[in-house]
């Protein structure tokens, strides 16, 4: 019997060892997790100590607790009254929170002249390093429903000059899930990409944006930014998960142009209306579309010549199970107010990627067919594939490499290599 007990003890020890080793796939990950916990606890202790240094308990917190009548019993664990102001302070996040994004790029093309979207690329050289956008995102909470968001970008121009751009400044007010309002400068809700990805390249899988979604001041064809009001929210639709977006504002887009330096489209006020569905049964799936309209001027024919710009978008997106599948189609319609001239310019891109450990290989195909007599004559017809991979060193630093092959109407094919070190902090 005694031998049986010893044998049982031995088996139980082996079993318990098995349990201890099982929860994490490797000891290294467990050590990393423990180190993270220790770091987090150290930060917590620091915060608690700073709370203790305050002269007395926060009267508002005490009032809140008393009104709820849910004060913790003395015998409960973690019932130290210091937790309450700590939690309150932690969740309310008073003051300005910020996130930074940066990037360092190396891009080489098999032509000497600079190409669309290659801002910072010095004309006449085969390959260059450039920093791209250095992006500071600042958010601040005003109360439970109101907050402020601003995005300040330091962009690189020619000859390592830098300019500051207030990409977004928004006063946000979330009345409910069905009505969320933003006032200020926003990224227009044309399609998916423009509102899902902003200036911080770290969030993107690829080093660059698809050409159709390139920011207007980098050569993109769409009015990507505007100042005005943007309203969005859910539409009661059960499991369909229908949402709307409505925008009214001024975009006043300026595009760089090889021939005349830049094109100031002097846009009138625009409206943009979109709908999209996120079905509950397929998390990560989104399907939708939008309609944008404004009046722009023709710089070549003079500011008195106006044309209506209508942009129709449809998109299908899936982000889940380590898969990214982005598909967007556009029709840009320019119709002159005086005369029958109308240009219908289609564009689309399709991007697919999948995470394998730290590596995410991707493939993208993009197409744009801009009429050579239109305001987008510098873009013309171009299409082609891009492929590459993103490697995440950790949660903050990623390296991306991309090869492009672009076919252009009336010009030789263009090949490019773009590598990027993107980071967030």
């Amino acid at each position, binding site marked *: 019997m005694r031998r*049986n007990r010893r*044998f*049982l003890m031995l*088996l*139980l020890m082996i*079993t318990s060892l*098995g*349990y201890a080793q*099982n929860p994490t796939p490797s000891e290294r990950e467990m050590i990393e*997790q*423990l180190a*993270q*916990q220790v770091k*987090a*606890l150290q930060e917590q202790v620091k915060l608690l100590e700073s709370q203790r240094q305050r002269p007395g308990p926060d009267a508002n*917190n005490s009032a*809140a*607790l008393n009104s*709820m009548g*849910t*004060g*913790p*019993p003395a015998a*409960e*664990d*973690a*019932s130290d009254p210091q*937790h*309450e102001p700590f*939690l309150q302070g*932690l*969740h309310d*996040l008073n003051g300005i*929170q910020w996130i930074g994004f940066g990037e360092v790029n190396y891009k080489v093309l098999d032509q000497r002249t600079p190409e669309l979207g290659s801002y910072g690329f010095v004309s006449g050289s085969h390959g260059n390093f450039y920093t791209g956008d250095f992006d500071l*995102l600042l*958010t601040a*909470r005003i109360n*439970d*429903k109101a*907050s402020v968001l601003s995005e300040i970008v330091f962009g690189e121009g020619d000859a390592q000059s830098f300019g500051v751009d207030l990409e*977004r400044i*928004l006063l946000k007010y*979330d*009345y*409910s*899930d069905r009505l969320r309002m933003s006032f200020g400068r926003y990224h227009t809700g044309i399609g998916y990409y423009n*509102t*899902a990805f*902003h200036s*911080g390249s770290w*969030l993107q899988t690829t080093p660059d944006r698809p050409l159709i979604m390139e920011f207007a001041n980098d050569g993109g064809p769409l009015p990507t930014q505007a100042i005005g009001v943007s309203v969005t929210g859910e539409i009661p639709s059960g499991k369909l998960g229908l949402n709307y977006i409505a925008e009214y504002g001024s975009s006043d887009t300026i595009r760089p142009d090889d021939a005349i330096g830049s094109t100031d489209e002097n846009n009138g006020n625009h409206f943009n209306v979109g709908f999209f569905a*996120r079905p*509950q*049964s397929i*998390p990560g799936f989104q399907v939708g579309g939008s309609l944008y309209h404004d009046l722009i001027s023709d710089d070549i024919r003079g500011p008195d010549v106006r044309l209506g710009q209508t942009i129709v978008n449809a998109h299908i997106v899936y982000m889940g*199970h*380590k898969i990214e599948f982005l598909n967007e189609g556009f029709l840009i319609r320019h119709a002159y107010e005086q005369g029958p001239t109308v240009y219908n310019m289609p564009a689309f891109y399709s991007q697919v990627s999948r995470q394998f450990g730290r590596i995410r290989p991707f493939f993208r195909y993009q197409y744009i067919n801009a009429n050579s007599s239109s305001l987008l004559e510098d873009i013309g017809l171009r299409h082609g594939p891009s492929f590459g991979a993103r490697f*995440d060193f950790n*949660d903050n630093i990623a390296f991306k490499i991309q090869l492009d092959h672009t076919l252009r109407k009336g010009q030789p094919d263009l090949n490019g290599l773009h590598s990027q070190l993107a980071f*967030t902090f």
Partner: protein
Amino acid sequence: MSTMQARIAIALVGTWIAAQTGILPAFAQNTDIAVVVSSQNAVDNLSAAEIRKIFAGEKRSWAGNIPIKLFVRAPGARERDVLLKLMNMSESEYKQYWTGRVFRGDAQAEPIALFSNGMQKEAIALYPGAIALVNLQDVKPGMKIVRVDGHKPGETGYPLN
């Protein structure tokens, strides 16, 4: 080894294998993770899809437009593992997901990660719109357990474990 020893060894090894492979229903019920809200919250039942939407920050207010306040456990806790399973994300993906939401202006900050269930209890007591995932054995007085897809934690068919 006697027959008795052999039987005990087989039984223990069998139990261990069953526990490792997750085919012990009774064991699983004890490790269910409860969805808890403030006792002032009128909600009694949520679907698993609704809970995912809430913890993904897509649903941001309760009925009556009371803002939802998310509290989650810090990495390393079992509740955190269940949260990631619910979201179908790794820890890195979860971090990137919330950075993206903040960047898009869909959230002010990543949900607060708390280091103990005691702190979760304090948070639930402090905020009428609070919601958290808590190991069933650690549910304290003052926390209101919400049914998920009509099931209470510990019942067969409860999805969060």
